[in-house]
């Protein structure tokens, strides 16, 4: 029995230090206050990312063993400026703090994270938080910046006025965290501020903040480096130039820089597959393992380094603060498509994966803009397309220098595909915003955070998280499809032996759809890949790995060579175009349905993207054939 259940249910206002019970503590703070850095610092590898039930705002949870017998569930809530729920992110924060969120117990304590270099404004959030009557620790983050820029805080004085403990800390450096540990260990008390302003009245809250911090706070000098860097990054000529260089550099690096790493993974996969084949006794089970699982999952695993590299770039851009400047530079372009700068960040994350991008659209207050962004996000070249693009480009486009040694033909082809997806997104957004989603443009309001060095810690955690998601997919969806496909390719057996692949069930299915895809330049093998890739795009690579692995006895024949023999140049280009436009991703469809509250939008989206893919692939195939003849 839990001995403390009764005392909790008994309505005791201040929870006594309890043993052997889970405690829920929420981290709250305005955007850019370093909330997540603190969360990462406190929980490290013991965190998991899930979704709140019903809504799709990301829920970041971490477990902490603060002392013997005392475990704390730490929740990192979405950043908010106030507790007025105007966006769905804010609604989630508000619901959790009020105890109205299903499945999440009301936090019994709050860690309020504020930026100490901008205390006057950030303290505005302290008013509604302290008014909740939940034990609160006020963490004034970025203490290192404050000190460097000559600011000062008298924490004791501030704590007295706020009626709550105050800690000056630097989450990036891990300094000043002891009071947080003590707080988590049960040093809780209901806050008793000297006075509180009228809530939901920003001028009153701001005046209160000034009064409270008045003598206890000396504001730091303006951030010199941020000004210097903005003079370059927001320079009328240099700014857009650097923006272009950054985008090109990202693509060039993930395409050529990842090659040695990918070769390494490939060697390991091939080597271990060979070893398995030689070690295990010959049986259908061994063939399933080596050809189905190793051939299918292995060929997708090769792309892990590339995907991690892409997430590393996005992480560096985001954590350093450059992404906000990029959004400003991109806003005019977004406006031409009828979207706003806030759509830029979801759309940029869609280059990694459409799912986090669709979740990120929650920060867009306008419903119309949000749906438009959701509908075009899958056109952005997500990392699941990378394996397909890489394979086809490497097989069909010879590597030559295009602009000196910096940009090669393959990188250029890749960039072209990225631009193609982007163009389709812009085109679709314009169509949507001038027809079914017509509406008034909403204002673009975006805070520019100070530039900071990204930390290895938060980048590492981010990569680990994304790597896990990718591997989990490889271990479930892709593994499942690989096994089913291998079996379908081996039945019906003829006289106890597996049939030729063309005569197997998989081959029959492929042949059935062949007439439909022949005009695009695809044969029945690609047809099987198109069907399996409805689950997820990168599955086609695994599928082709399995199909060609079965067909050719020699393992030395690479997938690229097999494709070269099997596809015309026209078909290859058509395949690239098809993958640029088609919505082959079950997870995305599921997320869109959940986000838009029904099947209507995902159905429209799927039909639209598939038709566009078919028509454009057909045109591309014809164009290449005409050009070559």
């Amino acid at each position: 029995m839990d001995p403390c259940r009764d005392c909790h249910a008994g309505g005791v206002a201040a929870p006594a230090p309890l043993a052997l019970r889970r405690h829920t503590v929420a981290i709250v703070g305005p955007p850019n206050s370093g909330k997540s850095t603190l969360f990462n610092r406190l929980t490290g590898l013991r965190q998991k990312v899930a979704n709140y039930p019903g809504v799709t705002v990301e829920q970041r949870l971490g477990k902490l063993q603060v002392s013997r017998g005392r475990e704390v569930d730490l929740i990192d809530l979405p950043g908010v400026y106030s507790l007025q729920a105007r966006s769905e992110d804010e609604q989630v924060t508000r619901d959790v703090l009020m105890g109205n969120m299903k499945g999440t117990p009301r936090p019994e304590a709050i860690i309020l994270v504020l930026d100490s270099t901008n205390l006057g404004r950030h303290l505005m959030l302290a008013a509604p938080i302290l008014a909740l009557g939940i034990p609160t620790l006020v963490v004034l983050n970025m203490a290192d910046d404050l000190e460097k820029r000559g600011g000062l805080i008298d924490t004791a004085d501030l704590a007295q006025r706020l009626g709550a403990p105050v800690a000056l800390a630097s989450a990036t450096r891990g300094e000043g965290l002891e009071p947080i540990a003590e707080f988590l260990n049960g040093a809780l008390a209901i806050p008793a501020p000297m006075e509180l302003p009228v809530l939901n009245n920003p001028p009153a809250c701001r005046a209160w903040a000034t009064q409270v911090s008045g003598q206890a706070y000396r504001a730091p000098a303006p951030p010199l480096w941020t000004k210097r860097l903005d003079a370059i990054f927001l320079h009328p000529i240099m700014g857009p130039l650097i923006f272009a260089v950054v985008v090109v550099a990202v693509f060039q690096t993930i395409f050529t820089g990842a090659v040695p790493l990918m070769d390494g993974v490939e060697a390991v996969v091939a080597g271990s597959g060979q070893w398995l084949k030689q070690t295990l006794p010959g049986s259908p089970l061994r063939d399933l393992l080596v050809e189905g699982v190793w051939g299918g999952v292995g060929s997708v695993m090769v792309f892990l380094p590339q995907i991690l590299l892409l997430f590393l770039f996005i992480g560096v851009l985001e954590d350093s603060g450059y992404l906000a400047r990029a959004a400003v530079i991109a806003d005019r372009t977004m406006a031409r498509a009828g979207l706003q700068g806030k759509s830029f960040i979801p759309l940029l994350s869609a280059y990694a994966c459409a799912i986090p991008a669709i979740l990120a659209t929650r920060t867009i207050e306008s419903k119309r803009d949000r749906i438009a962004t959701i509908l075009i996000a899958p056109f952005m070249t997500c990392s699941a397309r990378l394996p397909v693009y890489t394979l086809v480009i490497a097989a069909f486009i010879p590597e030559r220098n295009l602009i000196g040694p910096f940009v090669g033909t393959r990188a250029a082809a890749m960039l072209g595909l990225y631009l193609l997806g982007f163009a389709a997104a812009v085109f679709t957004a314009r169509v949507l915003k001038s027809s079914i989603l017509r509406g008034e443009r909403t204002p673009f309001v975006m805070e520019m955070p100070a530039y900071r060095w990204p930390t290895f810690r938060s980048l590492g955690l981010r990569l680990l998280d994304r790597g896990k998601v990718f591997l989990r997919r490889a271990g479930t969806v892709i593994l499942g499809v690989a096994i089913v496909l291998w079996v379908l390719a081996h039945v019906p057996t003829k006289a106890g032996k597996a049939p030729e692949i063309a005569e197997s069930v998989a081959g029959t299915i492929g042949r059935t759809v062949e007439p439909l895809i022949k005009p695009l330049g695809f044969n029945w093998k690609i047809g099987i890949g198109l069907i399996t890739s409805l689950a997820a795009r990168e599955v086609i690579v695994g599928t082709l790995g399995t199909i060609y692995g079965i067909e050719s006895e020699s393992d030395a024949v690479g997938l690229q060579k097999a494709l070269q023999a099997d596809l015309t140049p026209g078909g290859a280009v058509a395949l690239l175009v098809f993958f640029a436009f088609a919505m082959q991703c079950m997870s995305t469809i599921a997320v869109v349905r959940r986000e838009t509250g029904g099947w209507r939008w995902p159905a429209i989206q799927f039909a639209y993207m598939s038709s566009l893919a078919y028509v454009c692939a057909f045109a591309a195939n014809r164009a290449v054939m005409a050009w070559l003849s």
Partner: protein
Amino acid sequence: MQLSGKNARLRHAATLIDLRRGERGVLDYFDLPEDVALRLMELGFLPGGVVRAGRSAPGGDPRVFEVDGSEVALRRETASRIRLKSARSASGPE
């Protein structure tokens, strides 16, 4: 709140878009829906507060404004609906 000729001229000259880079102004009120105005106030655009125009994207839109210790980017269409106090009342007492 009668608009005399002089007042009209002053008003015409007094929104955020009239500030050139480096120039300061004192915020007066918003010609914007309430929820947008509230969001802007939370970000530091408080009536009576000082705002300074900063750098911008090419073409001057959107532009970054320094306000209450932070920098916030606004589109021209939003900035044009944030009114500034006239120079005279800005320098005088509240």
